[in-house]
């Protein structure tokens, strides 16, 4: 009688089922018109392109401030958008499903609670990823012609001053480092990883919080506190002794060290993003996302509706 057999037996962490919930969450957020932010972003980035900044640079460095400005404004917007979306959207989705009783109809189907949670998180992650991808594309589209124009102007100025071939090459390398580089794409990836971490934290908070406001406030507090995690860990627990080691471990597990994600400013200044630093951001994100999601499941699995 029952023809719905392809997902049997109902085991948790079924990728197709997670994909269905993730796709639905993505659609839900898109239809809540969160992509309107992209229009705002486009206006900001294009506006930054035409910004006339007071310059303190010598003529041979003319135009570089504008490149800094475009990157700084774009990455700043990306950070704000992704963090707000990570906390608010994730914190909103679960309580809303409970309040609207849509959760009843989902959990009354053969859907393990872990799949539901992971699906929701993946849906938010997909939205943030695609949004950042669109913003990254727009930033590069604005940055590339600007960088070319600045490079041509600087090379022309250098040639007028009879610069050597080596000098021209150095100028070219310096200016190109301020344009669309792989490091810049890496910085956008770091922004994504940070928002993914915060989204998983918001998911954990929303499993026991009764309001989105509480989730948002605590989420941002943890984000803020995370910037001082390393200092606090050393100050409170020192480096030696068994109790200190346990204290450091607990603090490390509970509170992410947000310094791992402090790589964006250096990239804006044209410094390369080292693979080791990117690797540490990825590892840190993976650790906290898995830890927070597991903790979310432990709470959610026992929750009654």
């Amino acid at each position: 009688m029952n023809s719905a057999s392809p997902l049997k037996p109902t085991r948790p962490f079924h990728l197709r089922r997670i994909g269905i919930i993730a796709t639905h969450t993505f659609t839900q957020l898109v239809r809540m018109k969160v992509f309107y932010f992209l229009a705002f972003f486009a206006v900001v980035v294009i506006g930054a392109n035409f910004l006339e900044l007071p310059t303190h640079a010598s003529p041979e460095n003319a135009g570089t401030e504008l490149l800094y400005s475009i990157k700084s404004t774009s990455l700043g917007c990306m950070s704000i958008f992704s963090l707000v979306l990570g906390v608010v959207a994730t914190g909103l989705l679960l309580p809303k499903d409970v309040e609207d009783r849509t959760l009843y109809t989902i959990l009354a189907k053969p859907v393990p609670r872990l799949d539901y949670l992971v699906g929701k998180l993946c849906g938010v992650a997909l939205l943030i990823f695609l949004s950042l991808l669109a913003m990254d594309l727009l930033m590069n589209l604005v940055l590339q012609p600007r960088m070319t124009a600045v490079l041509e102007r600087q090379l022309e100025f250098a040639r007028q001053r009879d610069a050597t071939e080596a000098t021209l090459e150095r100028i070219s390398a310096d200016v190109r480092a301020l344009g669309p580089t792989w490091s810049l794409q890496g910085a956008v990836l770091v922004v994504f990883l940070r928002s993914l971490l915060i989204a998983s934290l918001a998911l954990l908070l929303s499993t026991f919080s009764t309001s989105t406001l509480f989730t948002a406030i605590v989420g941002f507090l943890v984000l803020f506190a995370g910037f001082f995690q390393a200092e606090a860990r050393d100050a409170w627990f020192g480096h030696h002794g068994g109790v200190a080691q346990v204290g450091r471990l607990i603090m490390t597990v509970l509170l992410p060290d947000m310094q791992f994600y402090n790589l964006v400013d250096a990239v804006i200044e044209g410094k390369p993003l080292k693979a080791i630093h990117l690797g540490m951001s990825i590892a840190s994100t993976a650790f906290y996302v898995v830890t927070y999601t597991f903790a979310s499941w432990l709470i959610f699995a026992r929750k009654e509706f």
Partner: protein
Amino acid sequence: MEAAVEIDRLVKVFKPQLRGRELLAVDQVSITIAPGEVYGLIGPNGSGKSTTMKALLGLVAPTSGTCRIFGADSLAVDSREQVGFLPENPYFYKHLTGEETLAFYGKLCGLRGQTLKDRIGELLELVDLTGARDRRLGGYSKGMLQRIGLAQALIQEPRLVILDEPTAGVDPIGSRQIRDLIFALRERGITVFLCSHLLEQVQEVCDRVGIIFRGKMVREGRLEDLLSIEDQTEVVLKDASPELLEEIQRLVAQAEGAEWVRSGRPRTTLERLFLRETSRRPD
């Protein structure tokens, strides 16, 4: 034969998070529903009907006792393969259309491709929403939401359908449509566990009923057995003349031990009158 639903001495106590008294919501309730049966659980608000249903669906964990669906423990996810559930006042995702809603729930149950498309078409027709399949649920009326809710409950062709106040807030015409759908489910051999405080509705569709009050099952049995008055017999005549009635009364008076209790015209219900009158009116 394996029971469709087997609730055995279910107890549910809600413990307060901080202060306050414990609430005994369900107290030693046992229900067994045979496959193909339509069972109605009735009781006033707050009597424990919804908690019993939620325990059966694994949405709340029993404090003691067990709930089984076709032999499977209801706390196991697998038990929900065979169940369709329509909660009280369902609010589905407003951003989805009727068709997308059914597709979403169907996919969660493992349906896909042409099978899913065919099933969606069949269910939309069954609940009379084919014309509204592309409309978002935000624009649906209360009755339409109940009907799409019923369709999502049936998407994976479950053997058991649990309906919590299926006609709450629905007008008489919508209510009638939902009742007809329950009859259709019974025709197809699907077990229905219905929870309501609308007694007339339960009386009309259920084979067996249980009356729950303050968390306890106070009465349970076949509807006919519960409602029949043992020492009375009802005779309904059509176009009987006054002379015939007089003759019958005279015969009753002559009979030993029998008593004429009353006579008069049988009454229709207000609901039937409403439905008859509204269906007669041209648009």
